[in-house]
């Protein structure tokens, strides 16, 4: 019996040793092949990882005969180019070949789809930007897949939680014990103090949704699947736009009075005219700047986190000595821990600031304050 265990352990050890030697070989082969270009290769790899892609690739490796193998699955490509074109992204072969659909040729160039001729030539202008036609791209990309998965996960999770609360007369069970304090925190420490006791209920669904959506997507970004949804400026723009729209459509009369008549009754009209030439544009600019800072903050934080982790892992290949691996591992591990905190913190800040803006929009002035200023 003991002998069998020993043999098994030995077998596992040998298997792992094989892994190590394999890893070392590919590393050396890579650095010899690329020579001085290793740094640019690492940079390209990091920036490729940050981008959205048309296929869900888990990892790739180079075979002994120099052939690139990709492990993953293709996603549907949906184009609008004088008619709807739907095909699988496996036709691109990871950008190596052209995709032919109904006599049109499409080429994947830097993760973007361009229309080309049969040879796949791409024309450039003076600044080395492609001048080929870009068809409207509505593809189900990796980010879209992750958004759908997160949405379904949240739908399933919170509706099953609601059912379990109904069944157990409001006593939390299972995952509810973990999520109840978070939901209560958002209600009692974010929504109530910032929006006010009277109107906070209206905003709760949005605040909870946005918090868990951003948090879950940030946490998915920490997994080794190479997902970077909240580090995509289009997605943070959409999220900030929701906050912007809700802020302005639920704004009270006092809120709009504050935008266009910030001084109120404290000055006669002839005094206001000169001041308002400066004040009103600033107030209106503030409307745009608030959601803009929201979108930049989330995008930049997640993007920066991914770049830092990618660069630290890249250190391993730059050092080429025994010191590189533990150094890179230690630093990447520490930053990863901080990133887990940042994932929660960014979701919290986004929710907090949204609640703050909703609070500004729904405030109702105490009118005795204004009369006090007047006399």
């Amino acid at each position: 019996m003991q002998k069998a265990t020993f043999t098994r352990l030995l077998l596992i050890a040998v298997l792992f040793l094989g892994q190590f030697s394999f890893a070392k070989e590919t590393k050396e082969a890579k650095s010899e092949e690329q020579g001085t270009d290793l740094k640019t290769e690492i940079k390209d790899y990091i920036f490729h990882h940050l981008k959205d892609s048309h296929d869900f690739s888990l990892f790739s490796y180079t075979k002994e005969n120099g052939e690139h193998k990709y492990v993953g699955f293709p996603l549907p490509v949906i184009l609008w180019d004088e008619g709807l074109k739907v095909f699988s992204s496996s036709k691109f072969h990871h950008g190596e070949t052209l995709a032919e659909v109904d006599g049109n040729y499409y080429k994947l160039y830097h993760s973007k789809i361009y229309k080309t001729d049969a040879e796949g030539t791409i024309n450039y202008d003076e600044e080395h930007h492609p001048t080929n036609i870009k068809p409207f791209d509505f593809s189900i990309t990796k980010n879209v897949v992750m958004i759908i998965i997160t949405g379904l996960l949240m739908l399933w999770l919170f509706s099953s939680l609601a059912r379990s609360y109904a069944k157990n007369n409001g006593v939390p069970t299972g995952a509810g014990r973990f999520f109840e304090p978070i939901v209560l925190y958002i209600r009692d420490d974010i929504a109530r103090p910032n929006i006010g006791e009277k109107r906070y209920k209206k905003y709760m669904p949005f605040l909870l949704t946005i918090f868990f959506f951003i948090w879950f997507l940030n946490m998915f970004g920490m997994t080794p699947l190479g997902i970077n949804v909240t580090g995509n400026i289009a997605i943070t723009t959409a999220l900030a736009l929701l906050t912007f729209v809700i802020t302005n459509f639920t704004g009270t009369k006092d809120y709009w009075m504050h935008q266009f008549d910030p001084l109120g009754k404290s000055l006669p009209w002839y005094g206001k005219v000169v001041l308002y030439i400066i004040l009103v544009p600033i107030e209106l600019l503030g409307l745009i700047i608030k959601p803009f800072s929201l979108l930049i903050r989330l995008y930049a934080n997640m993007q920066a986190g991914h770049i830092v982790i990618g660069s630290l892992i890249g250190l391993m290949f730059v050092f080429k000595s025994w010191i590189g691996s533990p150094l890179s591992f230690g630093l990447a591990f520490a930053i990863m821990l901080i990133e887990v905190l940042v994932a929660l913190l960014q979701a919290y800040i986004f929710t907090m600031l949204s609640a703050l803006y909703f609070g500004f929009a729904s405030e109702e002035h105490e009118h005795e304050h204004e009369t006090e200023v007047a006399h």
Partner: protein
Amino acid sequence: MEIPVMVGAGLVVIGVGLGIGRIGGSAMEAIARQPEAYGKIQTAMLIAAALIEGIGFAALFAV
């Protein structure tokens, strides 16, 4: 043209660092003085830090 832009971004980041450092330090002092107001101070600190941080990122992305 390239170097002044980078120097400018660096200066902005120095300013942002000093600003967030001051916020953190002041929050520490405030918590030491009034430990019972810990939650409120922390929230206000995070908001102020987040607002300043936005400027830093704007400068970094201008490079």
